[in-house]
């Protein structure tokens, strides 16, 4: 049997590792990725474990690498992802790595601090340059008042101050002190308000915005600043103004009063700026070089560190073997891979050159983890099953059947060739571009869900195309591929004068008596009783599929019972279950087929379609044991075949008998077995008493008896729940499959509405001189958008969810336990993936 049929056989093994070779062995096992280690010290705190220092060193290295990566990203240097997968380095290489990272970090830090100092210097000089330039303008205005009246300026609306400045000459300015500086632009309003309040309006502020943003040396961000100059009188005010400036983190610069001095200073600043520029670019070059060389290796380094860290995490789960100076590990290994694990261990010991590691199989009563070996195709389907519940160890796995039934049941609800093609193309594209798409790691959850289910989407699309052909639906229209079997025999005037005309299936001229070769006849598309016909057809189809699906589930449970050696379950559960389902629901399916075959347009009166009894009524009457009077002389019989009433009654009695069978037989048998066992133990215990005269055995026997009683109650309740669930379930689950019909109907109707209400408007709008084309162009876009958004995406999602439910509830409840826990092997692959995703998310 393939491994998907049941989960793999697992073995609990004990590993004795020499302390020298433990690291290399675990490293090899990590590359192999087929071993799940058990934590042998669950009570020990993370920081009290043996290799906590190594883990901490790894954390430290990781921190340094993150710092490097941040710097690399800041400079926009591309990080090379060669896809290579370096092996975990030996423990002694760890020191080299540490030294290397330490050196790099220090170098970078030094470069950064140098650059920051230089940048700060540069910033100061630039600010000073701006101040000199802007204040020059202020002073010029003050000395040579331009023609414009000043009171237009916002800062001069105060009468008093206008006088102060317009009258000002250089002579007067000398009595007035001033402070010039630079401040963040967004702080200006508060700054101004504060100045005015604190100095009671006795200062005068002018400010001008600097056009170019400046780089903040600490954070590296671009900030906008403004130049300001404050005039005031007296030392007291000067103190205050300075305090406020400091409070608002404004930088103040000395600004000479004489114009000549200012000009000189500006020249000096300019030359110093030029010098600084060259130095700064050299530092930047150096930094760039360091980072580029680091960027080349950083991926590999990261991987190495992650690997070392995960190895030590694993080693922390091991027990210390004091006597032999080794480590003891316990792990689950798939039996099929024991050889591989042995080989990996041998490689590990060879690398370190110490004594070989020893692998012992332990016997255990513990439930092993569930491990299904999947490939990229089956993985998605297995995930669907696992999200309901991981299979109990070695029970039947529904996943292989789901591969077919899932897309099929989906397609029954989603049957439309057009929508199926869209879906299949999308799935196909994802499958085709699998590798490049998978390499692009994103944390976009929606995309990851679609991409993870690409094979499901592809299959769903293909199956929808198939059912679409059966329903003969393409964007709600039918295709006449083979020529309809129906023919109109009416002449033109009849057609023109009658709104509706009937075609008679019994008439060979109107119906050729050979059905349309594949799918539904396109003629139905035009008929007014299309919905009636479709409903009857799809409802019956749903019930048939549902019962086949459920029956299949019940039959699968045999394999479970046989595998787990529970033959009692076959006689006490499986057989009555099958009988119950057969007598009631398979019989109903039989009625459906019988009605399809037996009744028709041709043939005798009793076979005519007008005579056909309703299956629903027949079935209800069967359960109510209601008979019909068979009227003599009437051609139409309420029965479909002879002896139907007797057969129905017999089937009903069998079905009803199944209920107590399911309910009582198993608890009764268990009870009897227990009694027998008790008698045996009591007999033994009696002998023991005679021989040893001890009371312990008697006490134990008494305890066992009470336990049995307690157990029996539980078994009874459990069996009761089980039976009620099954009996009620078969009715409600059968009805539940009608969702296949309901969704299919809704889908067909919605797409028809979309066609007739949207696209038809475009198709019928004629218009002069091609204006209809433009209308059509717009309307088509609208229609196409709605088709994809509503019919494919939303309807697809809803059909998907209903299919999921049909599998989880209706199908799996018949046989699936789902109480296992998954096998999570220690594998570098998954660990690196997770770590990288964490990096991407940051």
């Amino acid at each position, binding site marked *: 049997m393939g491994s998907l049929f049941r989960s793999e056989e697992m073995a609990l093994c004990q590993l004795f590792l020499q302390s020298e070779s433990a690291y290399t062995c675990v490293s090899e096992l990590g590359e192999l990725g087929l071993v799940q280690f058990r934590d042998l010290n669950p009570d020990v705190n993370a920081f009290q474990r043996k290799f906590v220092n190594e883990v901490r060193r790894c954390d430290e290295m990781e921190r340094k690498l993150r710092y490097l990566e941040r710097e690399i990203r800041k400079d926009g240097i591309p990080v090379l992802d060669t896809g290579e997968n370096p092996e975990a380095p030996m423990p002694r290489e760890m020191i080299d790595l540490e030294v290397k990272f330490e050196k790099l970090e220090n170098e970078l830090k030094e470069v950064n601090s140098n650059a920051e100092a230089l940048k700060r210097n540069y910033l100061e000089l630039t600010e000073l340059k701006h101040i000199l330039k802007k204040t020059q303008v202020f002073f010029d205005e003050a000395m040579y008042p331009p023609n414009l009246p000043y009171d237009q300026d916002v800062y001069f609306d105060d009468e008093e101050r206008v006088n102060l400045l317009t009258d000002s000459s250089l002579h007067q300015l000398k009595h007035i002190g001033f402070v010039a500086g630079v401040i963040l632009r967004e702080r200006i309003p508060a700054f101004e308000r504060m100045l005015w*309040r604190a100095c009671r309006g006795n200062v005068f502020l002018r400010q001008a915005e600097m056009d170019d943003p400046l780089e903040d040396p600490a954070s590296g961000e671009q900030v906008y600043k403004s130049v300001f100059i404050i005039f005031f009188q007296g030392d007291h005010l000067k103190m205050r103004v300075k305090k406020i400036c400091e409070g*608002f983190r404004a930088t103040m610069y000395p600004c000479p009063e004489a114009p000549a001095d200012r000009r000189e200073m500006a020249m000096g600043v300019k030359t110093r700026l030029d010098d600084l520029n060259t130095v700064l670019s050299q530092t930047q070059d150096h930094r760039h070089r360091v980072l580029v060389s680091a960027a080349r290796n950083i991926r590999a380094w990261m991987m190495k560190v992650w690997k070392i860290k995960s190895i030590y995490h694993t080693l922390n789960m091991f027990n210390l073997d004091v006597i032999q100076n080794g480590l003891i590990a316990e792990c689950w290994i798939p039996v099929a891979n024991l050889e591989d694990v042995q080989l990996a261990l041998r490689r590990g010991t060879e690398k370190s050159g110490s004594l070989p590691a020893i692998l012992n199989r332990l016997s255990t009563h513990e439930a092993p983890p569930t491990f299904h070996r999947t490939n990229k195709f089956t993985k998605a389907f297995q995930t669907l099953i696992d999200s309901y519940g991981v299979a109990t160890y070695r029970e039947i796995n529904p996943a292989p059947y789901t591969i077919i039934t899932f897309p099929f049941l989906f397609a029954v609800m989603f049957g439309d060739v057009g929508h199926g093609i869209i879906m299949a193309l999308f799935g196909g594209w994802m499958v085709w571009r699998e590798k490049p798409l998978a390499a692009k790691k994103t944390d976009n959850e929606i995309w990851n869900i679609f991409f993870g289910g690409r094979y499901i989407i592809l299959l769903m699309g293909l199956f929808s195309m198939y059912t679409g052909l059966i329903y003969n639906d393409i964007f709600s229209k039918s295709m006449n591929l083979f020529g309809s079997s129906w023919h109109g025999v009416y002449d033109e005037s009849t057609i023109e004068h009658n709104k509706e005309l009937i075609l008679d299936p019994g008439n060979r001229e109107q119906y050729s008596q050979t059905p349309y070769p594949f799918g539904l006849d396109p003629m139905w598309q035009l008929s007014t009783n299309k919905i009636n016909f479709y409903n009857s057809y799809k409802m019956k189809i749903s019930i048939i599929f549902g019962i086949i699906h459920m029956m299949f589930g019940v039959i699968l449970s045999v394999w479970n019972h046989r595998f787990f050696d529970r033959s009692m379950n076959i006689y006490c559960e499986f057989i009555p279950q099958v009988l119950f389902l057969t007598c009631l629901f398979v019989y109903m399916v039989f009625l459906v087929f019988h009605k399809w075959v037996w009744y028709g347009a041709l043939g005798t009166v009793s076979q005519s379609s007008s005579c056909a009894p309703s299956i629903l009524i027949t079935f209800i009457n069967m359960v109510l044991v209601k008979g019909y009077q068979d009227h003599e002389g009437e051609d139409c019989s309420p029965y479909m075949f002879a002896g139907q009433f007797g057969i129905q009654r017999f089937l009903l009695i069998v079905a009803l008998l199944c209920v107590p069978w399911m309910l009582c037989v198993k608890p009764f048998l268990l009870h009897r077995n227990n009694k027998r066992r008790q008698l045996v133990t009591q007999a033994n215990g009696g002998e023991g008493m005679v021989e040893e005269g001890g009371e312990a055995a008697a006490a134990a026997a008494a305890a066992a008896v009470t336990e049995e009683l307690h157990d029996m109650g539980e078994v009874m309740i459990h069996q009761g729940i089980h039976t009620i669930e099954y009996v009620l379930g078969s009715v409600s689950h059968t009805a539940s499959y009608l969702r296949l019909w309901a969704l299919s109907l809704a889908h067909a109707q919605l797409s028809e509405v979309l066609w007739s209400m949207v696209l038809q408007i475009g198709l019928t709008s004629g218009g002069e001189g091609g204006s209809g084309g433009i209308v059509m162009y717009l309307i088509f876009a609208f229609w196409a958008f709605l088709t994809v958004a509503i019919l494919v995406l939303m309807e697809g999602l809803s059909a998907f969810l209903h299919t999921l439910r049909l599998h989880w509830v209706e199908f799996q409840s018949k046989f699936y336990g789902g109480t296992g826990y998954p096998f999570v092997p220690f594998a570098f692959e998954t660990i690196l993936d997770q770590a990288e995703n964490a990096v991407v998310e940051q």
Partner: protein
Amino acid sequence: MLDSIFNIDNGYLEGLVRGFKNGILKQTDYLNLVQCETLDDLKLHLQSTDYGNFLANEASPLQVSVIDDKLRDKLVTEFQHMRNHAVEPLGTFLDYITYGYMIDNIVLLITGALHQRPISELMPKCHPLGTFEQIEAINVASTSSELYNAVLVDTPLADFFGECVSEQDLDELNIEIIRNTLYKAYLESFYSYCKSLGGITAEVMCEILAFEADRRAFIITLNSFGTELTNEDRKKLYPQCGKLYPDGLAALARADDAENVKQVAEFYTEYRALFEGAGNNPGEKTLEDKFFEHEVKLNINAFLHQFHFGVFYAYLKLKEQECRNIVWIAECIAQKHRAKIDNYIPIL
């Protein structure tokens, strides 16, 4: 407020804050934390809690102050995220919470300025939730009226400042009086705001704020013994929104020593329990710790109601208590003074 429409505006944030609250360290975490030998052990254990990698980017010899800063940063980030997403009236409510920090910051800066310490040195000590634009220019003021007119008039604290405007120079006692007057006005205003919100918010928050007010009244009284603060002045500092108002406060105003205070507390069941068993001897919990424990209890209770703003306040206070606990444990570890390591206030 109608409960049914509470979630339209505040559902996301309430969910968020309840999620955050679940990340608060449990008793088992504390048991593990006190076993740590070094601060790196502490860091390693915190990594396994909701704190995650908040210390991952710090170089290895950890300082307690770094831990403290990072803890606070994390809390502030969370709070500011909530503030940014808040819709009125929750926005005002959250702003109200920050005013308390503003008062503390102002007092800190003025005291620092009195001792001739540069503002740039003091700023990192200020709580980031209580900063405002003009805060750094605070040392312009030398009297309280200047403080009001120049600095605080634009801030939300202006409303609380009305009573303390005076031409007196700022000195130690004055500052304390300003702090307590501000706090009194703040608490009373917050209290009446919560009352005006009504519903469960009022129910929960008034309980917490009433306790806060009473705690302040008790502590002011206890601290005032042996200072030059007169009983009359002291009475003006009591917030009048607690359960002690009016009789208890009047009695407190008359109290002359700690024994008198205890007698006042005797009349109130919840406070009597706090004063009993409190003491400074080893093995006894200090009154301060008792108050903290009671506060934690009230804050935990806030989470038992739904559809109210009290959870935001309670979360902040619980988290602050947790930060104090972690820092306490970290200090004990760093100073190798393990005898008192168990003196943290357990939460939950």
